[in-house]
């Protein structure tokens, strides 16, 4: 299994997100490969949920397109299986806890191990409830990636100390979706996390331009971009792979310019 933390060792990471089966099976497989070719360090693959309370309109709409394509959990596993024929890019799933719970924590984590899925991002699993899945995920080498928000305050210490894989730093209050302004204490938030853990911290929610990506990479260990890429998939449909590979390269460059600055 790919060790997520190691990915961040010598560089700033770029972590793009797409929704599985949006708009269809084959395009999703091609999109994963395109993201890998464009230079993604980790691909975050969303398993659609009927009621995605942490997500904004763009990702909600992508979930609906995936449902229209007939997505279910088995299909998502098959998409990863097909992508694994072409790429070893590290992949994490983003989904809501009920999807994992209904499949069975044990069975789900076992599948993750089989498919070389390194971690799970579960927006509705706060620190308080991690205990019911973490011991099982550990058994299969799957990291349960915690989220830290601008409102986390005194909770940061315990969350950071328990973190594995990477810490998903939420850039602002609210839900996913493109933004032009972020929580202004974001750099301090990352510093606070760093006080308690060596696990890398990547920033996500709302980032959609190379400039924003560069800035966020300069104050953290990596950048997560979701809605902006999902929006490309929506516009380009079956032609999305070429377009998102191009976008990924642009972000890659922006993030790498920070890497180089750091080396100098």
């Amino acid at each position, binding site marked *: 299994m790919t060790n997520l933390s190691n990915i961040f060792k010598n560089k700033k990471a770029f972590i793009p997100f797409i929704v599985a089966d949006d708009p269809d099976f084959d395009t999703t497989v091609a999109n994963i490969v395109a993201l890998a070719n464009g230079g993604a360090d980790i691909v975050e693959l969303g398993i659609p*949920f*009927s*009621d995605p*309370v*942490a997500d904004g309109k763009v990702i*909600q709409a992508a979930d609906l397109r995936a*449902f229209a394509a007939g997505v*279910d*959990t088995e299909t998502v596993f098959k998409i990863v299986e097909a992508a694994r024929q072409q790429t070893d890019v590290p992949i994490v799933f983003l989904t*809501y*806890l*009920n*999807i*994992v*719970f*209904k*499949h069975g924590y044990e069975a789900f984590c076992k599948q993750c191990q089989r498919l070389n899925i390194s971690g799970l991002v579960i*927006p*509705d*699993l*706060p*620190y*308080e*409830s991690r205990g019911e899945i973490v011991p099982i995920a550990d058994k299969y080498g799957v990291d349960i990636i*915690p*989220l*830290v*928000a*601008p*409102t*986390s*305050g*005194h*909770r940061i210490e315990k*969350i950071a100390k328990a973190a594995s894989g990477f810490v998903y730093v*939420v850039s602002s*209050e*609210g*839900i996913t979706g493109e933004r032009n302004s972020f929580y202004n204490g974001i750099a301090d938030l990352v510093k606070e996390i760093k006080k308690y853990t060596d696990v890398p911290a990547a920033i996500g929610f709302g980032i959609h331009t190379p400039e924003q990506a560069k800035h966020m990479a300069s104050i953290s260990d990596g950048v997560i971009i979701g809605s902006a890429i999902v929006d490309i998939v929506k516009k380009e449909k079956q032609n999305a792979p070429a377009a998102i590979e191009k976008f990924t390269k642009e972000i890659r460059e922006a993030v790498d310019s920070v890497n180089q600055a750091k080396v100098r």
Partner: protein
Amino acid sequence: MKTAEENKLSKKVGIYGKEFGGQYIPETLMTELEKVEKAFKECKTDEKFQAQLHDLLINYANRPSLLYYAKNMTKDLGGAKIYLKREDLNHTGAHKINNVIGQALLAKKLGKKRLIAETGAGQHGVATATIAALMGMESEIFMGKKDTERQRLNVYRMELLGAKVHPVTTGSMVLKDAVNATLQEWASRSEDTYYVMGSAVGPYPFPAIVKYFQSVISKEAKEQLQEKEHKLPDMVVACVGGGSNAIGSFANFIDDPSVQLVGVEAAGKGVDTDQTAATIERGSEGIFHGMKSLFLQNNDGQIDKVYSISAGLDYPGVGPEHAALAEMKRAQYVGITDDEAVDAFEYIAKEEGIVAAIESCHAVAYVRKIAPKMRKDQIIICTLSGRGDKDVASIAKYRGVQIDD
């Protein structure tokens, strides 16, 4: 002091039965939830808070509500003696006000200026808008677009009271989608905003908060029946959507094993059809809206679209304490169809001269079935959770009667 039954129900704080309840909500809201939990804990022993609560319940909400002996129904059904707990006579016309007064005081204590809430039938939204007006707070109500259409009168009432009503156009555009939208709004703006949860659902401490403020129903009913009959009821019946009036009606009887507790769910077109909202009978364990409980969902964990004629019972989940009470068989949950509920709506109007909410009529319909099978010396308390003015137009439509509205 915790009672024996409460200890059985919650080994861990916020956990009901084996593992229902808990906290499953985005990190962004967790600090806020901690603040709410602390304020809730403090308010129970805060004399000033309790005095304000008591004053508003008595002088504003019109409590205590009557425990009314339904003589005609009792005679007609020919079995158990039937008492109706008249939450429909509260200010704003439903039990919702009990909880809203309590939570608005909590919000004040937390320094909040803005109340947000979800609503199904509109009763909780109306109650929230009402208290916001009284206390000089802002209110914004999220309501499924479909519900805004079948409860247009309540939408206008909320606006009249100064609330902003947001029709929710995501998902199936009913109560569950309204909860999603309200959670999202709270995650975007929590600094000055309090989410007044309308039912005994959501992440801890909400199920406990709603139960605490709704328990006044059974506290009064128990005392009132003691005064009239000098004994406990044999059965307490209440309708269950999320389960706030039911948990309030059960609360003070849970430790009395001789009292049968019956929650009545909306079976829609039938418990065995896809058009139902009978969560406990048809649902399975899951995690949604911040809690582990029973939900109507598919094998993959996608939440089902549910159906009931009643916008207030049209919810795919149920409060975690109800799931636990069902699991330990302390309470029994039954389904009543649209047809049976509409019949009961007409029945109680003609027998007792009470136009009760279609939600409450699910409970009345069950009483019609069970009372004749009980002895004349037995007693049923049935909670009428709300009044039915809001439903008159849709019942007329159901019966094919055209009225201008």
